[in-house]
């Protein structure tokens, strides 16, 4: 099985609530990515079959959303916002700092697989800019020092 049986059963159940099978595609992609860390070729084939779409159509959807990945990401995916509010309050500096601290660039992963980095557009945390999202957690009002602490916290967690 490409994804866990539990998740697959959940998909089968939940899909019934949608008017069309394809209507449930985006949530399934997100759940699958959460479980596998990324959307593998096998996972794409599996979901295409489930939704009666071609693999190409599933890939079309994935490529539309920058938050969906077809290559493995780090365990902690650091998403640094550089959109207007964050940019005005130092978002770009945070990004540069992360780059030198982690030794990786945009959409790259550290050799040990712990971190990956991505420059993203507004994540809806403008009031507390500059903001960074790591997986589903938000970190706000950041400075370089605070960012170091955030990264350190995750490094310890692993």
């Amino acid at each position, binding site marked *: 099985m490409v994804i866990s049986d539990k998740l697959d059963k959940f998909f089968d159940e939940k899909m019934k609530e949608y008017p069309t099978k394809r209507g449930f595609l985006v949530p399934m992609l997100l759940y699958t990515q959460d479980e596998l860390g990324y959307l593998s070729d096998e996972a794409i084939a599996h979901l295409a079959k489930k939704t009666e779409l*071609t*693999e*190409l*159509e599933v*890939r*079309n959807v994935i*490529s*539309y959303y920058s938050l969906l990945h077809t290559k493995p990401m780090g365990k902690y995916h650091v998403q640094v916002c550089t959109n207007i509010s964050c940019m005005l309050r130092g978002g770009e500096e945070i990004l540069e700092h992360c780059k030198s601290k982690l030794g990786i660039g945009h959409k790259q992963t550290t050799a040990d697989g712990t971190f990956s980095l991505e420059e993203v557009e507004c994540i809806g945390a403008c009031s507390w800019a500059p903001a960074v999202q790591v997986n589903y957690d938000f970190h706000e009002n950041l400075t370089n020092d605070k960012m170091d602490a955030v990264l350190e916290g995750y490094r310890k967690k692993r």
Partner: protein
Amino acid sequence: MAEVKNVTITVDGKQVTAPAGTLLIEACKAVGIEVPSFCYYPGLSLQAACRMCLVRIEKMPKLQTACTVPITDGMVVATDTDEIRQARKSMIELLLGNHPLDCPVCDAGGECELQDMTFKYGAAESRYMEGKLHKEEQQWSPVVFFDRPRCILCYRCVRVCGEGMDVSALGVQLRGSSSVIAPNEGDHLNCEECGMCIDICPVGALTSGAYRYKTRPWEMKHVGTICTHCGDGCKTTLGVRRSDTGMDIVRGDNRDKSGINGDFLCIKGRYGFDYFDHKDRLRQPLVRKDGKLTPTTWEEAIEHVGKRLREIRDSKGGQSIGVIGSNRTTNEENYLLQKFARTVLGTNNIDHHRTADFAGFARAIAGKENITATMRDVASAPAILLIGNNPTERHPLLAWNIRTNVRLNQGKLYVVNAQPIKLQRQAARFVQIPEGREGKLVAFLNGDDAAAGTLTGASGSNDALKQLRDELKAQKNLVIIFGSELNGADITALVKFGSASGAKFICLGDYANSRGAADMGLYPDLLPGYVAINGPHKYNEEWGSLSKTKGLPLQEMMQAAKAGKLSALYVVGSNPVVDYNFDPAALQNTFVVVQELFLTETAMLAEVVLPAASAYEKSGTFTNTCGDLQLLKKAGDISGIKSDFEIIVRVAERMGTEVRRLVPFGSGVRADMGQTRGAQSGEADRHSVWLTANNLEPRFSPFDPYAMLDEIQRLVPGYEFSRLGLLAGNDQHVNAAERSNAGVAEGLVQIVPANDTLFTSGTLGRYSKTLNNVLENRRAPQNKEVMAD
């Protein structure tokens, strides 16, 4: 269906009345107002992506897209004001943001919708400072190339491949200005290679392997003719150039959307014409000398054939000669060939490679009115029953029309097949039955419930069968389409079932003119129009008295040859050695003459091989598998060859026949005024105008197929069509099968379907570079980058 109300709107001051719900862009078209559009394409889902069709509708706050607004009563619309022109200009400026402005080196230059619009609205000067996104051109398959920067993201290709072809090999990846069209296999296509996406692309983003960078649209002659491959009879416009061999066909398309196929062509129609200049094409007659086929002159070859046939006929009698006709020669040639066999050679031993039981079909529907469906009916019938065959592979246009019907007219499709076939995706009901039980199914439809027991194989349950029968019975105006799985009595039974509810029928045969071969009497027991040789008929009156004895069908000719009783075999455009398992050893002592394009397995056994014109090099008519008659127009000349028509006439003449008795040329008011010269007809017309102006007679020709067509129209029951309609390029439905008088069938007929796939086409397909290329190379070259990178 509820009556649709008409509404009246005003466009640029003109009143337009159309049914409510008509799209504004179509309503405008109806009164000759062209609203520019890129993404809108009739028959495909609405996209509203390009914003080129913006118009001002009174009382609406913003400009509206005419391609998505249905008209309502009293609407007042402006399509050409300063405001709108400015809006369109801005849209073009956006489109040109990433588009290179190098029309002079683009393949679409001269027939590009973006180029036209840029000329009209003028946005050639960009105010953008950003660099253009550039990607290298990619080859996605042997026939499809993609040049990303030229793409204006109208999504026509994506929709035609998904909705029209039901292939869905193209998609859109990424988002916004980085959106890009992507093929299904990452860096290449795995698809039906129909080229519809290329044809429909308004710009030069998708280009065709056959045509790209070879010529310009204004450098070609455009000849409207018929595809030479399957039995569906698509109209195609050939782009023809002069070349050192006489002509060069560089492309085939049906951009004018005329005819039974609209803009559809499958890979064979669009690219498979390229066998015409294959290096192995015969260009000189061959005569066997010292055991070897040796090139010779036409004079010598015809002399040899005429002399030998005359000797054999006079010494051994016509019964010792056999004639095998073709599924891809014109009606006129088929008619001429059987007339030649019966009146010059004096034999009824004439047959052809039968891919469907058209004679059985004619017997089943004889005397019935309105019983055959046209190819157009397939696109509009409320319900269709398809028994056997796999049209996606073997009748691509039929499959396209079925899909169009289901998609746009909510037509109901019922499929019965021994195999799962692709069209079941469109089917309201699909019943799988065991191989070879199609006849049982017909019995079941006719009320034989016991037959159900033999049918419930794979997926079909008794209930499913009963439901199918009940639903079919309730259908009015059903079209029933069947493949070669059904013949003889089974067809009669099927007709009995369907005609009770007023159904119409289509019998599916392979190759471009198999229906014409049958209609024109390439049968040992039937004259043209399925008229029994031993029954009453009119042919005696014009041709002199004919033998009433049935001739030998193909398989019996082989037995006669084995027994040493076949002294001569005359083969036109057929390869019985391969297609009918005709034993080559049987022909050792038979004088074999073959008219062919290539040195086939049969031609290799011949004593004389006569190089014949392909259907691109001659004029005449073809009848498609539904009975739709269409005009074939000559695209050009190839040096060294002659049409089958001319060859037969010359042989007959050399045998001492008075040619005028064979071809009634030079009489009446019709003559070859250049029709037979197709692309060169302009010249011929001018020539005849000049002749007339100088009080000279136009040259009437014994090789004029229209003289034969005159006789066909006069003598063949069911071929009384409108000549004017035909010459105007319209399909004419003929009713030879309905009007037949075939008598009773004797013995079993051997039906051998061609079983071609989408990428094969009998002898011709073997010599098509593109088809072979696709077959060998289903794996496209490796590209360095994948679209979404």
